[in-house]
């Protein structure tokens, strides 16, 4: 691999790493929030009953 | 409770811990057997039978000490926890630092027994002067250093699902300075070089640091 190849690989890994982690976190937060909303609804309904 | 009383109780706790260690000697004998087996394994793996032994022996000895020592101290609070002794100690007016120091001292004494025995055996196996006062000093300082940290880490039994592997994974990266300093000091001592002092200094520094921080942190762990 040429010098430019290593430079490209380095930057690619860095940016890919950033984006991947960002996406993972956003998905996780969204999942957690939807589970929390669901449980809060269930609890609210139970309290009303 | 004042200091003289704490010291007195500490002495009694140490006595109790040593008596328990004697009753529980299977654990310590197993650690000793592990150390011997590991040493033999390294002998075969690195072909330590030849005269090039001196270069590799310090590293071999210290990795054996660290592995067997950490596995042995992993069981430190097991008996106390199972029999409610730890709970009783927690609600007593005995200072947590006293409990910790008594336990650690007991571990250090037991480990030094195993290590000195291993050094004697290694002296015969490899025809190297491993039982010198300087080397015994290095081993003692190093043992205090790693036992202090591993006793603290064994204080909380988190390792239900990991088969006892969590403790070495936690302890060993922290012990890199101790390992480097011990191996270099041992190596310099074996080669009878002048460079022993700086490494013994670094080793002592790390031991003082690890003992101090473990003693200070133990009360917070309860």
């Amino acid at each position, binding site marked *: 691999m040429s010098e430019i190849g290593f430079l490209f690989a380095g930057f690619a890994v860095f940016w890919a790493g950033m984006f991947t982690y960002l996406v993972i976190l956003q998905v996780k937060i969204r999942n957690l929030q939807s589970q929390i909303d669901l449980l809060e609804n269930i609890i609210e309904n139970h309290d009303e009953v | 409770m004042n200091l003289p009383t704490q010291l007195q109780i500490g002495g009694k706790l140490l006595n109790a811990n040593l008596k328990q260690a004697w009753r529980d000697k299977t654990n310590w004998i197993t650690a000793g057997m592990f150390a011997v087996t590991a040493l033999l394994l390294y002998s075969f793996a690195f072909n330590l039978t030849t005269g090039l032994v001196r270069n590799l022996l310090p590293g071999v000895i210290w990795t054996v000490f660290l592995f067997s020592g950490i596995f042995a101290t992993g069981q430190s609070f097991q008996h106390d926890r199972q029999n409610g002794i730890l709970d009783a100690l927690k609600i007593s007016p005995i200072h947590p630092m006293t409990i910790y120091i008594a336990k650690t001292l007991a571990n250090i004494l037991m480990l030094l027994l195993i290590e000195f025995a291993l050094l004697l055996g290694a002296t015969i196996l490899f025809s190297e002067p491993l039982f010198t006062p300087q080397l015994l000093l290095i081993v003692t300082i190093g043992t205090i250093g790693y036992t202090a940290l591993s006793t603290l880490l064994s204080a909380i039994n988190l390792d239900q699902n990991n088969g006892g592997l969590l403790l070495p994974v936690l302890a060993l990266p922290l012990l890199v*300075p101790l390992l480097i300093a011990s191996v270099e000091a041992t190596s310099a001592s074996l080669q009878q070089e002048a460079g022993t002092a700086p490494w013994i200094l670094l080793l002592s520094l790390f031991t003082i640091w690890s003992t101090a921080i473990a003693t200070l942190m133990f009360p917070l762990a309860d």
Partner: protein
Amino acid sequence: MNLNNIYELRWKVLPPLAGVAMIGMAALALVTAPTEVIEGDVQRLLYVHLPSALASYFAFSVTAVCSILFLLKRDFKWDSAAQGAAVVGLIFTLLTLITGSLWGKPIWGVYWQWDPRITTTLILFLIFSAYLIARKSSSLDSDKSARFCSIYAIIGFLDIPLIHMSVRWWRTLHPQPIIAKLNPALPDEMLLVTLFSVLAVILVAAWFITLGVETELLSQRLLKLRAIAKTNISEKS
């Protein structure tokens, strides 16, 4: 404006600021910065390698501080914050190691050298991986686990200077044939680009830490709600 108000602004301020800074950093690093005379274009990896290393130290400092705060206040939000920051720290440590290897191969001819800084970075990675493994192996609301791991994080963080010192002494005793400095004295333009890159990446790290902390806090909340829901169901039956 107190600290809480500033913290509330994080979603409005950090993402756009970090985003713009990173785009600026990419342009500066790949285009504007001059080519290094000896190492050539591959030296531009400095602008991601060094900021990643600093971002990881920043993240682990947050972990250590939050761990201290947890031990003092016994509020689980600090434990969550410590864990969130630790994950970010590990990501940046990994990026430091990978970019360092990719920079090292064309310069040194090997992917790894036992250079004190990069060796210490590897041990740092092991320490905080162990921290997360220990913490995640117990329940999120386990007070014992949180206390123990906080202690471990503090000891691990404080151990780093000692590790660096001992590895450096060890390396001077066993020198390697070629020791190339990763960042010799930088000319002004390169220094400016480096400083800007460090700022940009630390902004990103701060953003990721707030996201990570949010994730952990939500996980804690979910655990609590599950417990309440379980109680309600068992009451019903």
